[in-house]
């Protein structure tokens, strides 16, 4: 008799789990948002007029512990201008087969050009596709932005871009636009956010 009640007790425990809250995440159908500071794939940001923020200084490549970043700098000319100032990155590649998403490149970047998104669905079936080039990494053109090369629209010299950048960092996806950030509390329209 004890064996039978014992069996039903066991089934009862199993059955009662039918009414418990489901803990399984519904990932591919309704993905839960990642933590706001999650280290996902990188973004190369733009100035509010569409010029690239990257100046090709290679500090990110030097900071990278996994040697995942390859940068080749080029000279801006008045006819072919990609970023304010003298230099821009003519080649910019991040090898996601090596990148460990530590974020040291983000800390090294002097112009806040390189930031990270929360995107993580990066699996590919060959290694070639895991090397992201500049075209893939650049932020999309938001309203008011123009595809480089084009002359500087926001000032006469690059100083106008960088000196004012503390209060007007631009509309690309950089974390400096977070409302809690010390430096960036305004967007390109000048409205406090």
């Amino acid at each position: 008799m004890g064996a039978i009640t014992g069996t039903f007790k066991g089934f009862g425990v199993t059955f009662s789990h039918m009414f418990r809250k489901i803990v399984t995440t519904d990932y591919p159908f309704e993905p839960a948002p990642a933590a706001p500071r999650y280290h996902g794939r990188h973004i190369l940001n733009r100035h509010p007029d569409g010029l690239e923020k990257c100046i090709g200084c290679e500090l990110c490549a030097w900071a990278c512990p996994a040697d995942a970043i390859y940068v080749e700098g080029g000279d801006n000319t008045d006819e072919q201008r990609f970023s304010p100032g003298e230099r821009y990155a003519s080649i910019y590649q991040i090898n996601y087969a090596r990148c460990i998403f530590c974020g040291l490149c983000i800390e090294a970047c002097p112009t806040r050009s390189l930031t990270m998104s929360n995107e993580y669905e990066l699996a590919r079936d060959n290694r070639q596709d895991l090397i992201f080039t500049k075209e893939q990494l650049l932020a999309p053109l938001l309203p008011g932005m123009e595809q480089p090369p084009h002359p500087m629209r926001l000032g006469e010299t690059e100083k106008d871009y960088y000196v004012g950048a503390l209060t007007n960092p631009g509309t690309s996806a950089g974390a400096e636009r977070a409302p809690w950030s010390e430096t960036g509390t305004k967007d390109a329209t000048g409205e406090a956010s």
Partner: protein
Amino acid sequence: MGIEEKLPAGVLLTSVEKLVNWSRKSSVWGATFGLACCAIEMMAAGGPHYDMGRWGMEVFRASPRQADLMIVAGRVSQKMAPVLRQIYDQMAEPRWVLSMGVCASSGGMFNNYAIVQGVDHVVPVDMYLPGCPPRPEMLIDAILKLREKINHEPLGPNGRRMLEQRKERGDVPVVPYGSMPSSYRNDKARRAEWTQAVREGREEQLRIENWMKQERHLQGGGRW
């Protein structure tokens, strides 16, 4: 492989191919090859919170002869490489290999003499998954991409020939199989968006755009 190598071409083959691929992808049993920290995430993906049982692969086989998919989770040292190859050789056809994490994919940050610089030096790899370690969602995404590839694999020599003919005719999908992120592929509107973006060659920009729309603090909005 087996009897499917002798299949004739034609309508029958395509139907059989669909049926076989459907059954193959529907329960891919993994062979555990946990070598480092990635294995912890692999175990988490098998647990109730992420639950790979939703795709019939909650069971990880310790015996390679009963496994279809080898998830190489972690760095492969030179000494481990022959063992890895032996496990792979013991697996029955059809078999697939998923290289999980950057160490297995390319050596990652361990660019030294002790680590094999990419597990594809030893075994053929079907899916590379970056991340250090990749979160369980990333592993599930990679497995779903691999399932999509399995679902469109040609069957037998005639199947392979038909695939070649289709390629010559230019009858290939806009988005290559196994390249669309799972959260896009499983949502009709987002799938159409992604397909359109691939046609324009701006799928990576689309991803950032959608992420910015989702993150309110990037639009100058209030605190999240």
